[in-house]
């Protein structure tokens, strides 16, 4: 009987304390140590930085193509890996850094439909001073096109997951059709699963 009472009391204490799980959140640094073999935020940040730095440090490319702030267009990077990743976010980051360098100008085709709507409205709604209205046929044109891809290789041997990622970025001269600049960022990560533990 005593044992039964003790078991009941223990179960009651366990049930009560199980509800006392507190949630604790805090700000943390942007670049953390690797936690998994997947691509993590710090890997993406390093890739963006490496690509932009590599482009700005390429003397021959800068001398030949980046005189007078060329106009660029950027395509969404292809994701040829098995991992879900917001590739548009990566291209956004690359574009932001290149614009901040004040060496390039960018076209934004994603909002072309909005531009057209503004021009139509300003031309037709009768409310806009036509001397200030944005006229058709005045937009800039891209001279260079930036595009790229992410690829992946994976292996699993003796409980060790080995993953290799490669980002490739290319800059194409739209006039000549030649690739004016290209670079790669390789990332290799491994993850071990311990034999003991959860």
């Amino acid at each position, binding site marked *: 009987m005593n044992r039964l009472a003790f078991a009941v009391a223990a179960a009651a204490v366990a049930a009560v304390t199980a509800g006392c799980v507190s949630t604790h959140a805090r700000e943390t640094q*942007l670049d953390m140590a690797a936690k998994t073999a997947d691509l993590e935020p710090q890997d993406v940040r*390093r890739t963006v930085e*490496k690509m932009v730095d590599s482009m700005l*440090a390429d*003397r021959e490319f800068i001398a030949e193509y980046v005189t007078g702030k060329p106009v660029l267009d950027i395509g969404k990077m292809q994701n040829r890996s098995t991992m879900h990743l917001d590739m548009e976010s990566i291209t956004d980051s690359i574009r932001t*850094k290149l614009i*901040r360098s004040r060496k390039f100008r960018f076209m934004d085709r994603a909002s072309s439909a909005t531009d057209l709507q503004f021009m139509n409205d300003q031309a037709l709604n009768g409310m806009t001073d036509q001397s200030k209205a944005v006229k058709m046929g005045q937009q800039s044109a891209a001279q260079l096109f930036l595009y790229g891809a992410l690829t992946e290789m994976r292996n699993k041997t003796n409980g060790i997951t080995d993953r290799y990622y490669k980002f490739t970025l290319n800059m194409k001269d739209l006039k000549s059709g030649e690739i004016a600049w290209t670079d790669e960022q390789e990332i290799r990560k491994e993850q071990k699963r311990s034999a003991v533990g959860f």
Partner: protein
Amino acid sequence: MTKTVKAMVAAAAVALGAGCVETAGTRVSIDTQTGDASVLECSTRLANRVKVVKVTYNDVAGIKKATVTIESTIHKRQRLQARMVWMDEEGSDIDADGKPFRAIVLDGEDVTTFTGMAPSSKGVKARLQIRETDTVE
């Protein structure tokens, strides 16, 4: 009894100390306007393992580029992280969050270079931070 108390105090000190990871590393400051460069070693452990041997900088079409050469002074492989943050003439950081820590795997007695580009022509001073990966969360 005294021995037991001492052992308990020591155990408590170890337990408390285990939560205190030293996060200070080595800092290299570069001023491309004056040509000054200085190395500040804040971690004795890292200072005994990594040495800054060369600091250079130049200009690529108006954007500053700095290169720091580091050398391992031990035989073991080291896992480090480093990032270069740029500042304007007044010393204000330019896009500090946009400059992530990059991983460096440095083999025993090996030498490697770390190169950083300023985010724009405003960046004239640079600060390289080197830390051990084990000290990162």
